[in-house]
């Protein structure tokens, strides 16, 4: 192990903590806004540490009384936004989970083929997959709107799930391919000699080895879908709305409801956080350890 002087170690800790704070502070400040009353949000200088917390913002966006905190629910809400956010959170969860599942499933099969099977133009195929992400999404949003209109997919879960899965596929394929590429071909060959079919080798031997990679890919897909704005905005009307789109409705002609917006943002982090926590245990590296002598 490298020997380090005390000052180096202290300096390293200081830099590490400063970096952590740099990332954590905006999140913390956003959370304080969610728990601040209207007036306190606009206090100058901003009250970072001392303020009187309230859950009113949460009560307002979910249209319920939490039974604690101060004050009563406002009778008249400002602006014309949709203030019942629980169904919107549900929309977000359904869309993110199903589009992630779809993208990772297709990507796993596609990238196994790209990693293992020989067909002409294989290498071009890989870069072609990525090229679909080179176009700005806004350039395809309008054509997709018209296509969806013809197919009656506007304002439906299926429509949004499909488009999110498609947007995620290129990256998911590339990521998953790198995980498959890491597995020595001899393992497939050994399975072949053992008498297994290609699909059985994939299902019984290779797939369990890329579980960690699939989990990592799923996290990225989930976060993309969870935060995607443009497609949901253009492809939905009243049937469903995801959190990012509905957050924008807090910006109204009579002002921006910062407290409500922060509360929704805070509430929306919870499902994403839970999802990542769930798949995290599969994010173990070194799953191929021991299969081959390196």
């Amino acid at each position, binding site marked *: 192990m490298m020997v380090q002087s005390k000052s180096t170690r202290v300096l390293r800790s200081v830099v590490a903590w400063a970096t952590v704070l740099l990332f954590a502070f905006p999140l913390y400040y956003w959370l304080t806004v969610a728990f601040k009353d209207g007036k306190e949000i606009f206090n100058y200088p901003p009250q970072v540490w001392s303020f009187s917390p309230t859950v009113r913002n949460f009560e307002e966006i979910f249209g319920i009384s939490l039974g604690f905190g101060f004050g009563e629910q406002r009778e008249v809400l400002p602006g014309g936004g949709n203030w019942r956010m629980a169904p919107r959170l549900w929309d977000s969860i359904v869309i993110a989970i199903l589009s992630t599942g779809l993208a990772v499933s297709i990507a796993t099969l596609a990238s196994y083929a790209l990693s293992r099977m020989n067909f002409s133009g294989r290498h071009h195929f890989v870069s072609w997959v990525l090229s679909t992400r080179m176009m700005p999404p806004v350039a395809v949003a309008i054509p997709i709107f018209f296509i969806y209109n013809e197919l009656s997919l506007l304002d439906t879960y299926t429509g949004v799930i499909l488009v999110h899965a498609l947007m995620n596929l290129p990256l998911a394929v590339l990521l998953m391919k790198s995980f498959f590429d890491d597995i020595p071909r001899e393992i497939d060959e050994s399975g072949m000699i053992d008498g297994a079919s290609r699909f059985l080798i994939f299902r*019984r031997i290779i797939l369990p*080895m890329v579980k960690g990679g699939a989990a990592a890919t799923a996290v990225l897909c989930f976060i993309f879908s969870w935060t995607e704005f443009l497609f949901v905005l253009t492809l939905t009307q009243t049937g469903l709305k995801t959190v990012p789109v509905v957050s924008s409705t807090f910006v109204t002609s009579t002002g921006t409801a910062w407290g409500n917006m922060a509360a929704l943002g805070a509430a929306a982090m919870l499902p994403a956080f839970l999802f990542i926590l769930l798949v995290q245990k599969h994010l173990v590296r070194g799953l191929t350890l*021991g299969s081959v*002598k390196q």
Partner: protein
Amino acid sequence: MANVEYRSVGKSFGSVQVLEKLSLDIADGEFVVLLGSSGCGKSTLLRMTAGLETISSGEIVIDGKVVNGVHPRDRNIAMVFQNYALYPTMKVRENIAFSLEVAGKSKDEIEAQVAEAARVLNLTEYLDRKPSELSGGQRQRVAMGRAMVRNAKVFLFDEPLSNLDAKLRAHMRVEIRQLHDRLKATTVYVTHDQIEAMTMADKIVLMQGGGIVQVGTPDDLYDRPATRYVAEFIGSPQINCQDGEIVSNGGEALFVNGELKLPLPASYAAHQGRQVTCGIRPSDVALSDTGPIVGTLQIAEKTGADKQMHLDVNGSEFVAVAPRHTQGVPGDTLRFAVAPDNIHLFDHASGIRIAA
């Protein structure tokens, strides 16, 4: 069990010819070692036998049936890979049982076969471990167990010992050979290690540049190497080679290179004036006060059993194996003698052996 036959087998990757019109017969139950330096095509030939590489030309016949278009799973072969290629998410038991499961064997049958393989290979107590929890030698044995239960016609080994340390390698050599003697299965074993080839093989196939240089028993290759390449490849320490010419002197033949004059069997007298390379194995020389090989000692290496004397003979290096207590310090002049029958002569230009 089966014989394997290669009929003018060729392989090319694009414009690169890796194997050229190679023909070889492997008898039923024989242990054949494909030996050669890396890039000679031995692993490619093995993979073609397994069906993991396509055959560009010619035919491979296993048990009387041409297998060119046959899928690996239908060739009834078993293969042990250099990196073992165990299934990392499965336990040892599942690794060994996988092929049986795929073949649709009954649970009892699978269990009995796995238990038997584990007993033979001393793996019984590791059956419920994952490959990552095993040592290199144990993983190697799991790979062998996997091959064993398949009851295959032909066993293929692709440099299976190269990842093990020297002691374990020596031990596994014996185990693999014993396993072969027990199963009597036709075995094709690829290695670049001539000691593995010499100790294990019934028959060695020495390959170079995509072709076969010599096929024979270990003794054939050691005692009568067909070319200078074979002579240099087989034997450790490596054979000493000196370039020179054959001089016949009144019915007697001599190998002459400057000061070095070695008596040869009389039959070589017919080759008077021929430019040759003379090969002498380090273990075939003996210290002698009147010996014709005179050299200056550069360094003496102790191996325990004997001493390897590195000499400067005629300006080129010459290694001689001497008894362990032989005295000598760098700079000393030592003399060695060699029996004429132990001198190998190769044509200087072609490298082909000149028979006595």
